């Protein structure tokens, strides 16, 4: 039986966790060990913006120990990831270099959306529960130490996601020094959190009806289990959960920890967590809450299992990304009909160039997204729409896209209308391979966009034939396309430069 022993390392703000999994097609994924060591990297990052020497030392020591444990289990593959506590430090490059030289381990720094997406994947892998939940409008809230991520589902697709930079540990750092001024620190934390959530609700929730809430939070599964009288069920109605959370008010963390059978040394952030749960759940008009016990480590393992064809995820994440794209397009009042035409045309070109462009499914998805969003900047400014488009995309979180991917989409949309720059201009944000992807996708998008220049959706169908370095595009349209075909000379030139393929556009008039 083919089996992989996989180690997932999650370098968090509060602790460093390694989980060892066995992954096989037959047995799926099985956790065989979980090693956790507390090191508050976040306390440094969130307060000072960099991680001190001592903490880096202990991080390296722990990772070296983890490496030994991995050897003990004869781990085949590992993935170690850092999140906001590492991402937000000013000395991150030095830290990664030190980790590499001292432990031999490579650590990936996840962008927020990558991090949340991986966790979201782990939820989606809980097939039965997840699919049942999202039958109704659902929100997922991922309570982290650095921030809180809320994503909304509609019609079984994830449509929007927002990051609220207020997590349990950041709350503690914010309120440090307030202990002497109040006897109800937890109440204060709740107030602070509620004010952060107020804006979110106003902007994103006001016209939405949310029925179910999925929460990822370290202590919530235990709280729900307790409320369910120890039964291993992680579902609870909002009212019952709020009553349970209310019962902890003004209790000290030690006694809550004892009630919940949580080890006192991990209960440090218990009060802040409960404050977040209270303000989050209390402020949403939901019926049922599901709090599965999942973390980044599970997500990393699921992702590996999926990529290596051990497991198949029942949920289509591409649809999520496209649905999110549509949602953004709607928000910035893009011409959806035009966008759709451009998208379709772009896809036909992309597929027609198969064998030439050396790109895959993922790039195709990025192109679709760029097509959907290529004109969103017009919402801000008609004259500087390209730059605005870039800015909107680059600063909007699309769950499921990595930081680089989002950068690619934003650039493709931008250079759709602007002159395509030299690599050195983009080198700060893109590696050369990504630059090439941007060039290829831009070349395609430009042609597609040009074909619906008048936004009048003139053609019915399009066919492509690639023969001897010539791509012939036949457009079936009853209307006059001279404007579109005639105006695209410079775009065509760019296209031909990028692909080394001649582009021949023909119109076929057929009723």
């Amino acid at each position, binding site marked *: 039986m083919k089996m992989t022993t996989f180690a997932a390392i999650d370098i968090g703000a509060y602790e460093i966790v390694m989980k060892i999994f066995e992954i096989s097609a037959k047995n799926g994924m099985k956790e065989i060990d979980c090693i956790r060591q507390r090191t508050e990297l976040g306390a440094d990052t969130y307060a000072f913006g960099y991680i001190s020497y001592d903490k880096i030392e202990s991080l390296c020591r722990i990772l070296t120990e983890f490496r030994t444990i991995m050897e003990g289990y004869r781990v085949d593959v590992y993935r170690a990831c850092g999140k906001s506590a590492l991402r937000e430090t000013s000395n991150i490059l030095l830290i990664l270099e030190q980790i590499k030289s001292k432990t031999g381990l490579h650590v990936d720094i996840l962008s927020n959306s990558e991090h949340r997406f991986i966790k979201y994947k782990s939820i989606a892998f809980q097939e039965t529960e997840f699919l049942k939940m999202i039958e109704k409008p659902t929100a997922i809230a991922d309570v982290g130490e650095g921030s809180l991520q809320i994503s909304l589902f509609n019609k079984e697709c994830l449509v929007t996601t927002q990051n609220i930079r207020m997590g349990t540990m950041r709350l503690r750092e914010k309120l440090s020094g307030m202990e002497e001024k109040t006897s109800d620190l937890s109440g204060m934390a709740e107030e602070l959190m509620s004010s952060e959530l107020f804006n979110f609700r106003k902007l994103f929730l006001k016209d939405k009806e949310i029925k179910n809430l999925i929460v990822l939070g370290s202590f919530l599964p235990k709280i729900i289990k307790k409320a369910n009288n120890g039964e291993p069920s992680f579902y609870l109605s909002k009212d019952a959960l709020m009553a349970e959370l209310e019962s902890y008010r003004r209790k000290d963390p030690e006694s809550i920890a004892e009630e919940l059978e949580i080890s006192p*040394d991990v209960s440090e952030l218990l009060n802040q967590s409960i404050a977040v749960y209270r303000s989050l759940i209390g402020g949403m008009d939901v019926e049922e809450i599901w709090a599965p016990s999942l973390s980044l480590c599970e997500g990393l393992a699921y992702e590996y299992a999926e990529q290596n064809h051990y497991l198949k995820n029942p949920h289509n994440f591409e649809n999520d990304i496209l649905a999110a794209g549509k949602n953004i397009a709607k928000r910035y009042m893009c011409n959806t009909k035009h966008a759709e035409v451009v998208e379709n045309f772009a896809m036909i070109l992309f597929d027609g160039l198969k064998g030439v462009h050396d790109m895959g499914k993922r790039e195709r998805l990025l192109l679709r997204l760029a097509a959907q969003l290529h004109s969103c900047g017009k919402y801000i400014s008609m004259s500087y729409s390209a730059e605005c488009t870039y800015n909107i995309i680059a600063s909007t979180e699309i769950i499921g896209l990595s930081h680089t991917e989002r950068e690619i989409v934003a650039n493709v949309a931008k250079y759709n209308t602007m002159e395509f720059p030299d690599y050195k201009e983009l080198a700060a944000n893109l590696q050369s391979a990504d630059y090439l992807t941007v060039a290829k996708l831009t070349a395609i998008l430009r042609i597609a966009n040009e074909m619906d220049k008048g936004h009048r959706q003139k053609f019915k169908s399009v066919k492509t034939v690639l023969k001897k370095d010539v791509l012939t595009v036949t457009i079936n349209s009853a209307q006059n396309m001279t404007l579109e075909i005639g105006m695209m000379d410079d775009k065509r030139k760019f296209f031909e430069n990028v692909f080394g393929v001649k582009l021949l556009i023909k119109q076929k008039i057929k009723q």
Partner: protein
Amino acid sequence: MEEYKGLLSPEYYYNRELSWLLFNDRILNEARDRTIPLFERLKFLSITASNLDEFFMIRVASLKDMVNVKYNKPDIAGMRPQEQLAAINEKAKEMVTAQYNTYNRSLLPALRAAGLNVVTSHKNLTKEQKHFVDQYFLEVVYPVLTPMAVDSSRPFPLIRNKSLNIGAVITKDKETQMATVQVPSVLERIVEIPGEKNVVTVILLEEIIMRNIQQLFLNYKIECAYPYRIMRNADLTIDEDEAADLLKEIQKQIKKRQWGEVIRLEVAEDMDKRMLKWLRRELSVREEDIFRISGPLDLTFLMKMYGLPGFEELKAEKNKPAPVPEMQGEGDIFSKIRKQDILLHHPYQSFDPVVDFVREAARDAQVMAIKQTLYRVSGNSPIIAALALAAENGKQVTVLVELKARFDEENNIVWAKMLEKAGCHVIYGLVGLKTHSKITLVVRREEDGIRRYVHLGTGNYNDSTAKLYTDMGLLTCSEAIGEDATAVFNMISGYSEPPSWNKLYLAPLWLRERFVKLIRREAKNAKEGKEAKIIAKMNSLCDREIISELYAASAAGVKIELIVRGICCLKVGIPGVSDNISVRSIVGNFLEHSRIFYFENGGAPKVYMGSADWMPRNLDKRVEILFPVEDKRLKNEVIHILDILLADTLKAHILQPDGSYAKQDLRGKTRLCAQEYFVKEAQERVPADRNPIRDRVFVPEEPVELQ
């Protein structure tokens, strides 16, 4: 918890030290029991002596420390340290008197009748014997003696803890001086000398030295010579927070131990007054700490006497641990454990499966890691050798060696270093906690993934004591327990506690709470009119909270049967408080050591075993593991064991409402000795050997299972 408050008052509790002395009394009773083979009685007497030594070195020393630092908090029974010391002193002296009465009046004459003549004084030697011992002295003893005279220029030498010495008053030119010489511990204390035909005649080494003491101080006149022995404060308290390097600190402490304050001085009853005064002054001993002994000091030599060749008919039949039926047959130990969970009952059943478990793991190609906690290890331990071999074979071996195991530190440091050299990852205990749990985890990569094999026990991984201590063990590959075992070792290695535990309860984390919950559940069931019962077997019971919970449960109507070998601070028969509680202590050939807990749970009994007693130190200051026995077959077996222990009529002493222990009136009762019963039962359960040569039907070998 209003209702419990009254149950905490001191009048409901016994002092633990006095209760311990009663336990030693029960052993002494065995030494006095004429129905027991004579040489076994010697052994019991020897045990009372070594027990008492340890008791003084640790408990009495600790109380003395308290008095010295003016710590005046009363104990569970309301006694302050000074009061406890006074009471202990009185009882201990009574005990010593009883020990020597037993030795002089009962054992010596019986030995003589049985053909072993112990010459009690060198003055009683025959001419021929005198010649023999003098010769022996010159040739064997004299070379290793270091006599020391004491005067103004030569200060009083260091007298080693627990060593036997001879003090002498010597004079030269009318000037009196004191001298001392240690009876060498490298020589046998019992020396066989010529005597009557068919009688083995022996004399103690100190008598030979006293007879020849003149040889040591040639220019002096010997006025008199007497043996004496001291006991020092040996309680090892390490401030772990301050010890930067625990290992070094302990090594330092061991050296220091010989220098501890003298807390007991044993002298010959008729010792010369001048000498006694001199010893008192030089050793700074208080009058009440002097024990005047009418017989040979340090009765632990009786254990050696037990070992004298011959006299087999005067000893109990030697127990030969029976093989474990589930372990027989072809196949490796792992396939046997996969077939079923295996319960081990030592010493009735062999300890070999435990040693084999580690040994096979060390050699098995599929085993990736072995993790084990070691508390007390035997000299030349096969387990240590197997662990070292495993590391050499490239397995990841993690061993926690508890350096704080009392009196075993020196031994453990040696093993720990050896293991480290072999490539094991050695953890030298945890700061502030003693690791007392007994757990072994073997991680094996099999066809369908990683499988964990776990051994959990109530006794130490010590193949020598496993022949003498009654203990239980469980071999399992249950996933839930395997996961927990992994978590235990992660915690021991300094990582955080897992979010939840499946089956195991760990002290000092959750064990106390769990016991309280289990007891309260019985009380609740009793109140609701359901069946409610607790049976608990342990070595000591002295935790105030647990006892008060037991009182409350008893008051609620729970039937509680306790089998407590040693200290028991709980009182039986208090009306309305403990009328439903019975306590029995089994003192037999084997040392009762297993900890088993049974809770009726409204008709769906829960059975647990573990390493912890109901003592504060076990529940609060040690890493202990309580594990459930859930397999129905094994659970019934454990319940059967408890039933037999409760049915013992020969070796069980029952705690009386007045605090004394009494054996049962046998009239109308079946005579049953649980330990003998288990010996027989274990032997009977071994399947009869097939003799392949004589058998008419050939049996094809089963194919070897390939992984």
